[in-house]
Every structure is written in structure tokens, then in C-alpha cells.
């Protein structure tokens, strides 16, 4: 049956991967203890070194038995922690590297966008690089000529287009690179992490453009550890872990599956400072940022996800779930509550034992520092059912939140950053509530 796959494949399936596997041969000095160790070795040890300790050759399966189909018009997001095999999978589909086992079929014109501005030469002008990059991405010269104005318009660097790109800021560089890629016209698009670049405003523009591409009937495979953009862009999610598919289904469930499986999840059962009646309990708390995994680090205004796995059965009356964000100096700075979500997220029959509840925080404008998350299950009347303090750590990195060229929050202890602006009014018309002189007097 699998061998007749290509004949029996439904017409709308444009990408079909069957049992894909990828083995890397690596040289090692000591036995790696984890996959991430192994991948470290992979990076560091592709070149055999002379060493008194005899190097051994080892086989690492970066990908194992990965099977899935993508239909026309479908947007598949592939998520998973670092080293899960996401990029390897995309490299195989993009024909950069071959699989060791299995096979895949792709029906239609493919473009792969694995990096923004591939092949850009710093000495060449923006104009020259558009043609160069276009050719590298597989566009014909005529195609680039036709779209040239649109590309320049989209990039917003028209005034600098004849300047060598080595004089561009990194933001301009990335914008130009994305602008070329955004004008590809494939039937199947393979996308890797390219959104994690540029300033926030441009990222929004990219997202809008990508969702335009996505909703024009193309098939898209989007690889990212940026859970947020996967959740926004994709209909379907495939979760990879240690090279294997651990989940394939609706994107919300995929995100929840990924977040609850992340090693960052803290076992809340071990909490010492626990309060409440204990009928319902939070088992695990995981925090993920839109920027990455491994360590949750993000810049303000951070987009984060907090996932809670718990035992929810036995609830008999309306509940609310609350998350508090605390700084390591103590004190709760921000509170999130299911009461503040008009869709009443907890009033669903799907909430059962082992369910994961995810709180998606769009913007968390905090000053740089380490923060912890507490979780509370409360009855409507305010009685605490379960309360777990200070679980789930994340770090907010220094950033130029206000666009002033300096890191925000360096000079004060107030934790929340709120965008605002100042004005100076001419003396004649200025009537300010209280005369300062009077106030003192």
C-alpha cells in the first residue's frame, strides 16, 4: 500500500512525507547524554580532531519516521524545542540535504525561504542584491524586473537602494531581504523562522504579507519555535520532539501539546508554599516566549504563553484561574484572570483531568529582570482551591522599548513600562491644574 501511495494520493495533497529519517554520523570523544549534547557534538565535531582520547563515530537520528501530508491551501506549522529536528525536516523538503530513510513527494513549484537575504553581498547595492537574491531564490530576471518596484516599495529602503548594503542597518538589510522573498510566487512555500527578525512594526507587516500568501490557496510549511506566530498563521500544527512527531492536529492543540511537553515545565506538585482546599490541583506550569525555548527570554513587550496542566474534574461551581507575575524582589506586578476573558474559557466540557489551559499574553511590558509566575484556582466567592507560588521562571531582556536608543527600565525600580509621550506648551496658554507655587505655599 505505501508503495502505491503516489498513485492513490488524493489530488489535493501537494506535499507527502513518508517515514522520513535523517541520520548524522558524528565523531565524539565522550558519550553524549542528551540529544542537545549530541547536537552540540554535531556542531563541534563534524571535523575529526586528533585527540589522545580515541574519537568514536556515532550515528545520531535527527529525524525518525516522520510522516505527514499537506494539502493545497493548508498551512502547517512545525513546532518543537531546539534540536527537535524541525530545521532538518525543512532542509530535506527544500532538497538541501537528503533523507537517510523514507521518501517525500512534492507536487508543484516550491520555494524555500530558510533565511532572509541569502547570498546578499555587502559590497553590492540594494538594487543589485535584489536581482542576486531573486535569482538565488529561483526567480527569473524578468520576474524580478516586473516586481522590482513593488519589492523596493515593500522594503521601505527606496532612498538607499543604490547604496552598498554594507552601509545598511541590520533592520534595513532584513527588510530588503524579506521584501524580495515576499514577492515569490510559489505553489508550495517552505518557511523557516524568518519572522524572528526586524523591528516589531516590520514583523507585523511580514506577518500580514505571509498571511496574504497563505490565504491565496498555496500550501505552506512553516517551521518555528515561535509558538505565537505558528498559532496565528497556521491551521494545523505538527509537534516534533527528539526527531519524532509527537502531535499532529489542530494548531491550538498542537501549541498546548508542545507547551505542556516542554522541559521548562515546572512540576507544581513539589511546591512547598502551597495553599488551598486542594480539590483541584495544578500539576505543571510552563512558560514559553514567542522568541524561543531553552531559556524563556524575551524583550519587552514580551509575548508569552503560560500553560497549566491540572486535575480539573470534580469542579462543581464556576471557577476562575489567575496568574500572577512576580519579580524576584517580591510583589505581584500583573495579574491575568480567566474572568477577564469574555469567552469564559473555563466553561467548556473539554476541561478534564490532564487538560492544559494556555494563557496567551499578547504584550507584557515589563522592565528587564527575572520574573516568576504564580497560579491560583479560586471559587467565584474567592475561596482558594489551589495556589502555587513562584513557579515558572522567565527573563525579560534589556531592550530599547521606548525607541530612545537606551535600554528602558535601567534607572528605576518601577516594573511596568507604559508607552507615553510628553509635550511642552508655550507659557501663555498653559493652564495646568494646580499652580506649583500655590501648591507649595
Amino acid at each position, binding site marked *: 500500500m505505501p508503495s502505491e501511495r503516489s498513485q492513490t494520493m488524493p*489530488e489535493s495533497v501537494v506535499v507527502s512525507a513518508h517515514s522520513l529519517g535523517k541520520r*548524522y554520523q558524528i565523531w565524539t570523544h565522550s558519550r553524549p547524554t542528551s540529544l542537545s549534547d549530541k547536537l552540540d557534538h554535531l556542531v563541534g565535531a*563534524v*571535523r575529526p580532531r586528533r585527540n589522545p582520547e580515541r574519537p568514536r563515530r556515532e550515528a545520531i537520528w535527527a529525524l525518525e519516521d516522520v510522516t505527514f501530508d499537506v494539502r493545497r491551501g493548508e498551512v502547517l506549522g512545525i513546532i518543537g524545542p531546539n534540536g527537535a529536528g524541525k530545521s532538518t525536516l525543512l*532542509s*530535506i*523538503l*527544500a*532538497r*538541501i*540535504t*537528503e*533523507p*537517510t*530513510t*523514507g*521518501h*517525500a*513527494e*512534492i*507536487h*508543484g*513549484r*516550491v520555494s*524555500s525561504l*530558510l*533565511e532572509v537575504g*541569502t*547570498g546578499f*553581498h555587502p*559590497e*553590492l547595492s540594494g538594487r*543589485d542584491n535584489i*536581482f*542576486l537574491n531573486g*535569482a*538565488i*531564490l*529561483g526567480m*527569473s*530576471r524578468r520576474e524580478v524586473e516586473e516586481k522590482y518596484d513593488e519589492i523596493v516599495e515593500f522594503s521601505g529602503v527606496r532612498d538607499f537602494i543604490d547604496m552598498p548594503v554594507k552601509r545598511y542597518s541590520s533592520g534595513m538589510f532584513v527588510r530588503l531581504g524579506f521584501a524580495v522573498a515576499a514577492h515569490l510566487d510559489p*505553489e508550495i512555500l517552505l518557511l523557516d523562522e524568518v519572522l524572528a527578525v526586524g523591528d516589531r512594526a516590520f514583523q507585523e507587516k511580514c506577518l500580514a504579507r505571509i498571511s496574504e500568501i497563505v490565504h491565496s490557496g498555496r500550501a505552506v510549511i512553516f517551521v518555528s519555535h515561535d509558538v505565537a506566530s505558528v498559532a496565528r498563521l497556521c491551521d494545523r500544527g505538527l509537534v516534533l520532539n527528539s526527531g519524532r512527531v509527537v502531535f499532529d492536529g489542530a494548531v491550538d492543540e498542537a501549541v498546548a501539546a508542545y507547551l505542556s511537553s516542554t522541559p521548562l515545565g515546572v512540576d507544581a506538585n513539589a511546591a512547598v508554599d502551597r495553599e488551598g482546599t486542594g480539590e483541584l490541583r495544578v500539576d505543571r506550569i510552563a512558560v514559553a516566549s514567542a522568541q524561543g525555548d531553552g531559556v524563556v527570554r524575551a524583550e519587552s513587550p514580551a509575548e508569552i504563553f503560560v500553560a497549566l496542566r491540572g486535575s480539573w474534574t470534580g469542579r462543581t461551581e464556576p471557577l476562575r484561574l489567575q496568574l500572577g507575575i512576580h519579580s524576584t524582589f517580591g510583589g505581584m506586578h500583573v495579574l491575568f484572570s480567566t474572568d477577564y476573558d469574555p469567552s469564559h474559557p473555563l466553561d467548556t466540557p473539554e476541561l478534564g483531568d490532564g487538560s492544559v489551559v494556555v494563557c496567551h499574553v499578547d504584550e507584557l511590558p515589563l522592565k528587564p529582570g527575572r520574573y516568576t509566575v504564580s497560579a491560583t484556582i479560586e471559587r467565584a466567592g474567592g475561596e482558594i482551591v489551589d495556589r502555587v507560588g513562584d513557579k515558572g521562571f522567565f527573563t525579560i531582556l534589556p531592550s530599547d522599548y521606548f525607541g530612545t536608543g537606551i535600554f528602558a527600565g535601567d534607572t528605576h525600580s518601577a516594573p511596568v513600562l507604559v508607552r507615553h509621550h510628553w509635550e511642552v506648551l508655550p507659557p501663555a496658554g498653559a493652564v495646568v491644574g494646580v499652580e506649583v507655587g500655590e501648591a507649595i505655599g
Partner: protein
Amino acid sequence: MSASIEAGTLERSSPTILIRPTSGPIPPRLKELWAYRELFLILVWRDIKVRYAQTKLGFAWMIFQPLALLLVYTFAFSHLARVTIPGIPYPVFALAGLTLWIYASRAVFTGSESLVANITIVTKTSAPRILLPLAANISVIVDFLVTMVLYFVIAALYGFFPTWRIVFAVPLLFATFILALGLSLFLSATNVRYRDVGQALPFLMTLWFFLSPVAYQLQTPGLSWETIVQAANPMVGLILAFRWALLDTPAPHGLLVAALLESAVIFVLGIVRFAHAERTLADDA
């Protein structure tokens, strides 16, 4: 209704790509190379443009390098070591060999570095990798033409003008191109995994330079161990033949035959090595 059927047929005609494990060397896929001809031309154009347009002195630099070498060799070999060439002024003699040597050494250098210098094209796109060393080697021909102009000017100043034999310069350039391309393919593929190639290359090229009769004349050959060394070095036959085409010096006959055979063998070895390495280039990078 019929329109949608037509659309369906159109869709069916779109290409199907089968991705599966393969083994053995990947032979050059000429059809695919043809499909990527525009990228190839742009890469050649980029290499030339970067060299000439990047610095204001780009063009002057191309002239200055061979000229400076020529002055040093003239001083060292003609004035200090008293090398004399019967009937030919030393600068003309040396430059006739230098043009081809500079071409070969630049082609091997840029060709060997071509994959490492463009590693993102290897690791982030599926463009045929062989385009990179090929484009690097082709772009160096422009440099060669510039040094040839320099040669013609200097030779004319000394009263030397090309004869009909100059037409043989073209096939000799082609043979040198094949030799340099073979080495570039071999070394560029190796360089991705073992960056030591880039370290060793300048040293090896210097050795090769002194083993080739660029700045000096070969002693009239009797059959000795020296002949074997000369026959083993394809640049000997090529430079002697090139000088014959430009200056009517004695033809190298046997040495040229050896050089042509060796160039062909090195080219084939380069292709084979590249074909074996191509599959794992992205993994090794």
C-alpha cells in the same frame, strides 16, 4: 466547468519532485544546470562587479598586481641573478608567463574558496553547488583579459607584436581553465569539511610557482629526473606553450602533451570528488 477541468490539467502538469535517499556520486545534472543559467550569470557578474566596482581603484588594482610582480621579478632575476633570455627582454619574457600563471592561481584560489565564501547558498538553498566554483573560475577570465592587455602594451613598448600564433592562446587558456576548474572542484568540496585547505593553499601555490617556469627559463632538456618533475607539473607545458604562442620561443611538444593529459585527468578527478562530496556539503558546513 470545462475551465476548472483545464485548471486541473494545468496543475497536474506542474513538476513532481521525489525526495529519497540516494547513494553513490551525484553526477552533474546538466538539465538542472541549464535551468539555473540565470543564477550562474548573476554569480559571475557579481564576482566581477565586486572585484572591480567595490573599490575606486578596482581596475587599477588588477593592473597594479601583475605590474608590481613584474618589477620585483625583473629586479630579482634579471638584475640580481643575471638571468638572460636570448633575444627577448626579460620583462616581456616574464610577463608572457605571468599572465597565464596569475590566471591559474587566481582561479584556483577563488574557486577553492567559493563554497565556503558562499556557504549560506549551500546550506539554505538547493541551487546546484557546482555553480559556485564554476562561476568563480569563469569570472577570473576577465582578470586574465585585463593582464593580457597589460602584456600587449608592455610587449609593444619593447617592439614585440603578436603573430598569427596568438590564436593558440585561446585553446591554451581553455586547457588552463579546465585544469584550474578541476583543482577548484576538488579543493572547494574538501574545504567545506576541512578548512585547513584554505590555510595550506597559499603555501602550496608558492611552491608551485617556483616549480613552474614563469620567471625563469628551463635549461635545455636532456632526459633526467628534472624532466620527470617538469612533465609532472601541467603548468610547465602550458606556460611554455603559451609563451611559444606569444613570443615564438621553442615549442614544448612532449611537455604540452603531458600537461593536457594531466589537466584532463585532474578535471575528471575534480568532478568525481565533487560528485561524491555534493550530497553532504550542507551537512558538513
